[in-house]
């Protein structure tokens, strides 16, 4: 059956023809390439390299950036791309988010002309993969106290430290690494061949199994002087990247929730108990109705935030709300969908458990659910509650 996306309030009618065509192209690619292969990719714990090639050929990596070979799509179009990719799997959307929002964006916004011309066209085409090193083993929600250091050695920088939970790390050709230079956080471009740099893969995940997660280790890692990002200092650098990625997640979560809803609806209509489809029972209808309600709200939230991204009137707090709400809603919908599927819900014949396990990561990465609450709490009260320090 052709996939019919839940769109109760006809958000489709608010899109441009171009946005719809891009959404449909990605939707078809996910139907033909991701959904038939995702369970095997998860079992094998690999991100199929062909997906990198395909995403590059489709031109969706770094889609909202303009110039340097990038198309400059609307943020609505970028959101739709994330939505469709995550309907397939959060790991596929993570690959695209990290490449576009976390690796390409800082080069595009804070890089030198030479850096932009050198890296961005090949990254847009998927030929070079990027990753983003901010989180450290002991510094997750509190990146400002990071340990990783850069030293100016005259003709080069010397990096020492370690990053953890880095999507795409082992398969990356380059890493955007945030490190302290004379006590100030700066961005550096580290290439995979740089001496003293290794990126071992982290294994044993029960979540995002089709996504590569790595450590980045810098042991007297020497990089040329022209690899510092000249345009930004302090946490503003990594946080501005995260704003874009979090925005994409708010759409992606809608895609994962739509996938769970569709599966639950189909299952409820075909599963017969006590001589009738379970969809005919009030308790099940109540659950399906709740799922539709939450997805519809999440869609409208993401769409309106996209419009604000496109006209430049957004605030980071609005992004926090959308990321937090939509991931939370998608995770609850995955759990409820599992409930509707009964025991069948735990099988990989259905996408439910995979989405649920993925969304546990998505709830935590790119600003945990609680940290986003604190961002909004500070907005409401004017009092920061991240730390006990004044």
């Amino acid at each position, binding site marked *: 059956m052709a996939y019919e996306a839940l769109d109760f309030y006809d958000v489709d009618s608010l899109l441009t023809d171009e946005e719809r*065509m891009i959404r449909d192209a990605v939707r078809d690619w996910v139907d033909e390439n991701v959904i038939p292969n995702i369970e095997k990719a998860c079992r094998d714990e690999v991100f199929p390299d062909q997906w990198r090639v395909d995403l590059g050929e489709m031109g969706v990596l770094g889609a909202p950036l303009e110039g340097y070979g990038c198309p400059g799509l609307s943020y609505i179009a970028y959101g739709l791309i994330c939505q469709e990719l995550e309907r397939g799997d959060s790991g596929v959307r993570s690959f695209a988010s990290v490449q576009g929002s976390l690796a390409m964006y800082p080069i595009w916004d804070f890089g030198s002309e030479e850096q932009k011309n050198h890296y961005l066209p090949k990254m847009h085409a998927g030929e070079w993969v990027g990753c983003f090193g901010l989180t450290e083993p002991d510094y997750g929600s509190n990146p400002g106290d990071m340990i990783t250091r850069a030293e100016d050695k005259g003709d080069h920088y010397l990096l020492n430290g370690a990053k953890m939970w880095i999507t795409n790390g082992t398969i990356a050709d380059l890493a955007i690494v945030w490190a302290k230079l004379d006590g100030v956080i700066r961005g550096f471009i580290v290439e995979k061949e740089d001496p003293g740099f290794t990126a071992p893969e982290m294994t044993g995940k029960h979540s995002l199994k089709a996504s590569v997660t790595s450590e980045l280790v810098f042991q007297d890692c020497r990089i040329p002087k022209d690899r510092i990002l000249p345009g930004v200092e302090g946490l503003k650098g990594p946080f501005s990247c995260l704003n874009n990625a979090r925005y994409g997640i708010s759409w992606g979560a809608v895609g994962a929730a739509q996938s769970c809803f569709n599966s639950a609806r189909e299952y409820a209509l075909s599963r017969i108990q006590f001589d009738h489809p379970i969809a005919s029972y009030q308790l099940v209808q109540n659950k399906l109705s709740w799922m539709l309600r939450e997805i519809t709200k999440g869609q409208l939230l993401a769409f309106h935030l996209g419009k604000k991204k496109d006209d430049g009137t957004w605030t980071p707090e609005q992004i926090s709300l959308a990321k937090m709400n939509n991931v939370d809603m998608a995770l609850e919908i995955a759990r409820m969908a599992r409930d509707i599927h009964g025991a069948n819900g735990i099988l990989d014949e259905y996408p439910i458990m995979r989405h649920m396990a993925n969304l546990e990561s998505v709830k935590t990465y790119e600003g945990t659910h609680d940290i986003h609450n604190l961002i909004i709490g500070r907005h409401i009260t004017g009092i920061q509650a991240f730390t006990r320090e004044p």
Partner: protein
Amino acid sequence: MGIAVLLKQVPDTTAKITVSGGRVDEAAVSKWSFSPYDEYALESALQIKEAGGGDLIAVTCGPARAAKMLTDAAAVGADALVHILVDDLGALDTTQVQAILAAAVKHIGADVVFCGKQAADTNAGSTGPGVAHLLDASCVTMVSEVAADGDSFTAIRASAGGNERVAVSSPCVFAFDKGTTELRRPNVRGIMMAKKKIIETMTPADLGVDTGSSSVSIDTHSPPPEKPPGQKFEGAESVATVVGKLRDEANVI
């Protein structure tokens, strides 16, 4: 060289078809797509254009909704788009549709025509030969592959004992069976270019084609008969019954 590709928008092969009042309920079709054989024709024409140059003009005859398909064709590389607007294609018989398409090909001045061997909805299979007849052009049917050398073409088509290689020169029509390459996927750049392409929209009357009366009409559509329920066998004692049925009823062993 002008290459016309005749495209028909049909219900997607995965879409659910419902019949209401003796007619397929078009409003209930959730997704419309290129007719699959037309996709092979379009991909082959794109490859000919890339190898030897020329203008690829995508042509369709159908209601307003079919315009989207032309934009989809532009997104994968069609240079120009022609839409002959016919609100109810089902009211026309195949010779009338052929007359419209042949007039459109003449209008755009194409020398070579690519199309599918049949549309996935009507399955009439008459467009290619019919258009060729009206254009006084050569026609090769059941084609899987075409190569061009100037105005000369070689086409591979299925024959009784394998494949035939047919040489033909323009003007000519190729009606595609399943081709060797699936239609390429549109990319973002193609989609952004496609929105700038203007669709030339006209009516059959603009082309001088009279669609006044048809001598053929469809009485009713009906859904295919429902499949009989499957049979279920359990336990070792049923083996002999199952083997018997596979041998005598299904004829598979």
